[in-house]
């Protein structure tokens, strides 16, 4: 794990997608940690100190959107780039909008990726976000 490795936290409950994205991002030189629940993700924040978090919008228990709001409201993580990964269909968009609408003043996700995740887009989004927040 070299200095250059950027830390990505994947919050996703589907084991296949977790495996896929971690293998892929590790291949691309990222340091990856995963959590299947919001509560686990929240606990990992301090130790892992991710530089970007990929959040599945539909997680068991708490919705991924709740995790987003809770991180945004935490002064320690309020500027952390957050990317929501969704099935990107209409129902979800509506849910997302009404959820964000109910939390006024909270900045929405820095990026939204639709499933199936396009690898090139994912890399482009990560590069942009990481350069923006922490230039080399």
């Amino acid at each position, binding site marked *: 794990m070299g200095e250059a490795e950027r830390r990505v936290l994947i919050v996703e409950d589907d084991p296949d997608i977790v*495996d896929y994205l971690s*293998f892929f991002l590790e291949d691309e030189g990222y340091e990856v940690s995963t959590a299947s629940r919001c509560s686990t993700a929240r606990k990992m924040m301090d130790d892992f100190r991710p530089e970007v978090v990929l959040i599945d919008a539909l997680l*068991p228990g708490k919705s991924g959107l709740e995790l987003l709001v809770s991180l945004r409201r935490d002064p320690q993580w309020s500027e952390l780039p957050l990317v929501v990964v969704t099935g990107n269909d*209409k129902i*979800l968009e509506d849910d997302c909008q009404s959820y964000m609408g109910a939390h006024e003043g909270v900045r929405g996700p820095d990026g939204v990726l639709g*499933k*199936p995740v396009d690898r090139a887009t994912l890399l482009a989004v990560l590069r942009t976000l990481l350069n923006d927040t922490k230039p080399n």
Partner: protein
Amino acid sequence: MQKVQLTAPGPKTDFDSDYQRYWEEMPCYLSVHDPDFRIIDGNRRFREAFGERIGQFCYEVYKGRDEICPNCPVEATFADGQNHPSEQLLTTQDGREVPVMVHTTAITDDAGEVVAVMEMHTDIGEVKRLQALLQRSQERLVQLFEEVPCFITVQGPDRVIQHANRKFRETFGDPVGENCFKMYKHRDEQCLVCPMQQTFDDGQAREHEEVLFTKTGEKLSALCTTAPLRNAEGEVEAVIEMSIDITQIRELQSQLASIGLLVGSISHGIKGLLTGLDGGIYMVNSGFAKDKPERIEKGWEMVQRNVERIRSMVLDILYYAKDRELVVEDVDLTALVSEIRAGIEKKASDADTEVRISLAEDTGVFAGDPQAIRAMLLNLLENSLDACRMDKDKGDHWIRLDVRREQPWMLVEVEDNGLGMDQETREKIFSLFFSSKGIKGTGLGLFISNKIVDKHGGTIELDSEPGRGTRFLVRLPLDAKPSIQPEDEN
């Protein structure tokens, strides 16, 4: 015929002859009766209608009777000197029936004795005709109110139902004197938003949609309209509510919405499965490129698992879309479980989950659709496997299948120590398109399983707690005839 001396005799004057003319021309039948009920005088109209009948009994002349009428007003006036108004039906000499209003006046002699009674008959034919017309139109209104094919009630300011039409009574029971909210909402207090109250308050008509409950507990969607009923002073005295049953329209709408949801849910599910396939292919390819056989193996498993999921999803969709009828034959659960055992064990070992199958030696056979029961079993088992796969809090996962015969049921128990469900999930778990699995679920599997069990005349019992796991207990009747009728799709 008795001679009646009305006044002391004197010379005839002009005054007398004027009154004679007025008597003659009075626009009613006038007759004077002696105590024997003989007519001793009559005016022109009397003579024209009944003929020259002076000296005859009044009951003969007016009614064609042989004896005095019961409740004769003339007799009563002879007795007490008072007017006895009544309604009578007379028959003229040409046989025409004339309804009349009768008034009687006592004629007394100088000593104050009633010596004769004058009877005045006013033709009330027109009044009678109007009365009959009024009654007919009232009856017609009542008939309309009763027979209109919607629910009508009239309610007072106290929310008490004063009137209800037939359709209302048949559907909700006899409501007069009951509160509206109790009668068709099965509530103990007034609804939060009450259009009746609003109409009472501002006198405006209101339209609103309600869910009502019939006397048998059935749910109805209704479009209700309220309108004020005002008294002569213009105050709202009561409110009429008319409701149209739109349950069928709403059902149709929800079916259409279901189709929309199905399409959405399928595309949603396919996207998730595609991500899984993508991932598998990526891992196989990158595994080859980096010469990492473990990764290739893992990737290939992902591909297989997701292809399998697509397959079962397509089967579920077909089952839902076609509302397949049961093909009933002898089902041997022992054999059926042996068939699917290998597949489930393979999937479970991929998910690091132990499979515990406890199968009675000989469960015998029962009447059912083997294919449907197989689909139901697979759905329940895969649901349990998913619950284990998604649970990251426990190290050791297991699923358990227990099949046994307990008269009068064939019992199938599927249990896991996976994620478990909270109350909300438990309540919705058999609903169409409800899924707790995020992008991987279509919300079809358990809905269809429940339907299959239902069609067999059985039940599914659910016991689940978050963190502990889930247990499904399926009871299939051993001797009940499964329904083979296609079900209504609601």
